[in-house]
């Protein structure tokens, strides 16, 4: 399974980004090989539709789940249509987010929402 995590840094021990559409990188983790690659999120500087473009990017990376803080309505729409489920994380690192998902500790994002303060 391929997991995409919105990330602020190119490191497993780096901080996850709670924003999806405008995160800096996507950490792309393969649960079989346990390898993690980092892909720049080209949508970060979009004038509009960043969530849509970011969803397209993770779909292109063949991710099956996305771990992030929140998903906007349009991103949620595209991810749903692409068969990708989103799971909610709080302030954490990439590796901790992935372990929490694998331990089934994360809840699925079913409603669009704004970042929490």
């Amino acid at each position: 399974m391929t997991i995409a995590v919105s990330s602020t840094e190119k490191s497993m021990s780096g901080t996850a980004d709670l924003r999806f559409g405008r995160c800096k990188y996507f950490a792309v983790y393969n649960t079989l090989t346990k390898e993690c690659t980092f892909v720049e999120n080209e949508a970060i500087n979009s004038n509009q539709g960043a969530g849509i473009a970011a969803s397209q990017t993770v779909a292109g990376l063949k991710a099956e789940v996305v771990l992030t803080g929140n998903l906007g309505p349009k991103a949620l729409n595209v991810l749903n249509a692409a068969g990708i489920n989103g799971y909610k994380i709080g302030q954490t690192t990439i590796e901790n987010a992935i372990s929490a998902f694998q331990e089934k500790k994360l809840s699925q994002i079913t409603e669009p929402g704004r970042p929490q303060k």
Partner: protein
Amino acid sequence: MEIVVLSGKGGTGKTTVATNLAQVLNMNYIDCDVEEPNGHIFLKPTIEKQIDVEILNPVIDKDKCTLCGKCAEACQFNALATVPTGVMLFKELCHGCGACMIACLQGAITEVGRSIGIVSVGNTDGISFMSGKLNIKEPMGGPIISKLKEISKFDDHKLLDSSPGTSCSVVKTLDGADYALLVTEPTKFGLHDLKLAVALVKEMGISHGIIVNRNIEGNSMIQDYCESENIDLIGEIPFSRKAAELYSQGLLLIDNPEYKMIFETIGTKLIKEASRRSSDAISGN
């Protein structure tokens, strides 16, 4: 003569200046503040016709589409997404540029018009009146401003009432103007946003001058700025309870004789400066 009234900061009196000057100078009035047009409140026009404004959105033929993703890739506005079940269109993000249709190698994309607002055309007290109105929830006023400009392109004398700020809508309104009239107020916010608007008209190479609305004796921050930047001060509109009362009743300030004189003086100076500046521009001075 095409004069655009803009401000930078919102609520400084663009519409007050544009509506009163249009009447005093007998110029056609065009409300380009399509997100919140309000010139009609003061000019009370008789509307003769309303024209629907459409933009073109792509329609994807599912039978021809191979889900190659080229259309979404070509879209600069992220209005398309390719998913295993088809191509998703977020129509409110679409600018109607047609790039997706060109990028599609299968010929699966055609375009269909979608209404985003209306243009009203009428007249009031001997001048023609036009106003654009963007539908609620639509984010993009540009095509409505383009429509207003297209309809009015043969009008010789017109005043365009811009939206506030320095965004795309303002740039679109300014495009092709002979002169820009910047309306501001003597506050730090007014001056701050005025500087942004001045930078914009300079960048676009449009001659410009400034009107100080709600002018208060003893506060010369805008006048000082005009002097230091060598920008023409076209006029001052005094801050008064009378002006606020007329405005709150939806009346033109020129209904009051004192204000009528002020606007006539401003109008004369505006036409003089605008004509001089635009002939300077033509002769390259």
